[in-house]
């Protein structure tokens, strides 16, 4: 009973001490909410568009494509002007008026004709690797879009040309119908005339369709079954077959009907080709991703569980570390040692007090991220509470270990800040753990927020129970930290 009285005395004292110190309250309790608010308000999932100036030859046709390309880039780049002089454009870059200078080649057609890629040069002055990566991706997207626009236009021309010769195929089909009919009547003269008409029409179609109509067949070969012959080739083959028909052959009428049916099929294929949008033809594939668990969430929402875990860890860890060191510095620990206070009671009392304060903070942080920032809670709230409780317990344990190691307030603050720095880099809140090398990834779990972040993301965003490994890590961490703190503080004779 005496132990319980002592433990609750410590808990009550810690809570009162924190509540009575407004500046400490602001720094350690209100502070996290302010940080969270600033983060949510200020974080830009998409960086502002890169202000770009294009350098084009005087009579370049590319200028007309700018609106299309800008629209396709969807805010990554914003073309704010066109120059015809590279030096003028560079001056605008040097004066930070623009972020990018995009230089188109003077003689793009000549370069392509010489079987080479025409380079589009992008100038920038960014040192930040993330900015540089973003510029590289944005520039490549712009060039891809330009290529797509050019190809679409070429394809559209081909489709249009194919249309002009489309009438020859129905004519050939009609002639074959006439031929079959004449053969069945026994009118060999009429049959030969119809055969001759069909050959003329097919020759005309074959010449006119050429490579343009073969685009579809090539497409089918590339990405489909691959069974389709090119339309041009099939017309040529049909013509040869019509030429080889012997009107004296008793089977010629049946064969003429078969050819008539083949031509109808060819017409259908050609019609399909013409009806396909040039954009689809030049860009037959688009990527579509599908999340099999949870829902796609905005970047701010994705970061929310990590921010909660890291802030909770930092606040309770700092509370615990400073509190124990403070007792030692004021000489209170001498009183505890002379009195009947044991290290276990001392730690349990402080744990209880700061667990209460930590719970209030955790509840507040969760309320803000859920009700203010709209972070979903797809999983069980009980799991979320369990994860937060374990993260807090492990963090308090770490705080007590830091207190045992530190000799002064200043040292405790330094160690706490080092723990925070470590957590920011390694907890997976900012940089995904999968990007860390083996070995380092395991070391990352020295911060309780690492397992806490992963577990909270599972619960809140995926709607799944936390991975057992993360729960196990937090439980073991808590036990090890408290045993270590107990032994260390006992050796330092704190109570």
């Amino acid at each position, binding site marked *: 009973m005496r132990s319980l009285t002592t433990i609750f005395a410590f808990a009550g004292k810690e809570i009162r001490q924190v509540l009575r110190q407004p500046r400490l309250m602001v720094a350690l309790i209100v502070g996290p909410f302010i940080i969270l608010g600033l983060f949510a308000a200020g974080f830009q999932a998409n960086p502002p568009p890169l202000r770009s100036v294009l350098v084009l030859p005087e009579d370049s046709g590319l200028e007309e494509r700018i609106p299309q390309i800008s629209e396709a880039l969807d805010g990554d780049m914003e073309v704010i002007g066109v120059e015809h002089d590279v030096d003028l454009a560079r001056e605008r870059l040097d004066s930070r008026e623009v972020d990018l200078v995009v230089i188109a080649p003077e003689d793009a057609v000549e370069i392509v004709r010489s079987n080479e890629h025409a380079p589009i040069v992008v100038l920038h002055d960014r040192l930040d690797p993330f900015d540089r990566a973003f510029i590289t991706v944005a520039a490549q997207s712009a060039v891809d879009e330009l290529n797509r626009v050019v190809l679409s236009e070429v394809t559209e021309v081909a489709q249009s040309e194919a249309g002009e010769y489309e009438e020859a195929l129905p004519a050939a089909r009609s002639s074959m119908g006439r031929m079959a009919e004449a053969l069945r009547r026994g009118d060999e003269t009429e049959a030969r005339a119809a055969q001759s008409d069909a050959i003329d029409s097919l020759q005309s179609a074959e010449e006119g369709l050429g490579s343009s109509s073969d685009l579809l067949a090539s497409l089918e070969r590339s990405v489909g079954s691959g069974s389709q012959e090119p339309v041009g080739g099939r017309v040529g083959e049909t013509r040869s077959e019509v030429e080889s028909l012997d009107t004296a052959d008793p089977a010629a009428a049946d064969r003429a009907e078969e050819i008539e049916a083949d031509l109808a099929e060819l017409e259908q294929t050609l019609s399909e080709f013409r009806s396909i949008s040039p954009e689809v033809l030049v860009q037959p594939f688009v990527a579509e991703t599908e999340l099999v668990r949870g829902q796609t969430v905005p970047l701010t929402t994705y970061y929310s569980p990590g921010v909660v875990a890291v802030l909770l860890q930092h606040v309770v860890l700092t509370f615990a570390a400073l509190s124990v060191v403070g007792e030692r510095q004021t*000489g209170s620990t001498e*009183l505890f040692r002379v*009195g*009947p206070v044991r290290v276990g009671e001392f730690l349990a009392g402080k744990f209880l007090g700061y667990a209460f304060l930590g719970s209030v903070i955790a509840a507040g942080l969760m309320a803000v991220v859920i009700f203010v920032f709209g972070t979903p809670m797809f999983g069980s709230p009980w799991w979320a509470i369990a994860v937060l409780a374990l993260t807090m317990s492990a963090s308090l344990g770490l705080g007590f270990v830091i207190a045992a190691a530190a000799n002064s307030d200043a040292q405790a603050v330094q160690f706490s800040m080092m723990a925070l720095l470590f957590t920011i880099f390694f907890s997976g809140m900012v940089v995904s753990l999968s990007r860390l090398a083996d070995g380092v990834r395991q070391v990352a779990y020295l911060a309780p927020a690492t397992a806490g972040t992963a577990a909270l993301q599972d619960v809140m965003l995926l709607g799944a129970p936390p991975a057992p490994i993360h729960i196990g890590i937090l439980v073991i961490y808590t036990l090890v930290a408290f045993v270590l703190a107990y032994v260390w503080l006992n050796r330092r004779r704190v109570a």
Partner: protein
Amino acid sequence: MPEAIRAADVTKVYTSSGEGVWNVDLSLPEGRVVGLIGPSGSGKTTLVRLLTGLLEPDSGRIEVLGKDPARFEGATRSRIGYLPQRSALYPALSVRENLEFAAALHGMRGRKRREACDRVLAFVELEKAQGQKVSEISGGMRRRVGLATALVHSPELMFLDEPTAGLDPILRRTIWEHLLELRTRDRTLVVTTQIVGEAAYCDYIAVLSEGRVAEWGEPEELRRRAFGGELVDVLFAQRPAWSTIEEIADSIGATETRNTGPRKVRFTVPDAGSAIPLATAAAEKAGAELEEVERIVPEFDDVFVRIVDNHRALV
């Protein structure tokens, strides 16, 4: 008289500084105020830390309330009160909350705790300030709050490490009044102080010098031991011959005679009460006219300096 504390040949040396206490022998009776007096660095706090179990001796044996302090059990610890040099109070908490916390550490709760707090607040006359935060009260009041926290569980034995350090004389007296009242309640108090005059409040004094107990005993006894007896000052109307002074000294059994002025001589005698009439008679017989004969009670500052000087000379 039963002993509250017994220390036999206790030595504790800090390896880092080489300071400590050596060969300390003490036997402190129950129900008395015991003063540990000595200059800064003389080993007072080290001795208190040994007696409270905060330190373990390198050699020797200590018993406090019949137990080894390094192995005190909870029940024994609750019989002890401790006021460290720095009052370990929580500035953000009120006076009463500090007391309630101190009481709870000893397992007190509910009504018993409230009554104990009321009692000590009345004792240190801080009832009106009980709601004030410790950060808002004066240094003297804090010291009294510290004393109250050490008292709140009614310990039999109290260790008070420089309870009056840094306080003005009026506050020092107030604190001592509280301590002397505790003596009337049969509490044993071990008080360290650098203020030698406070020895007058103690029943027993241990004078520490350079980590050793230079003298130990009741204040009057120490005073006597410091000067080799009691002091009698004789003021002659006219300076007599040295032979006359020697005659007077022989008649009163003086162990030491020395001039303290042109016409003034100080005799160290076994008993001043009997020496004064004998000195007067001897002077008349020798034809020397006396203007004044008085017993001198030396200030404890002088006693202390004499003891420390004697001890240093001996060491």
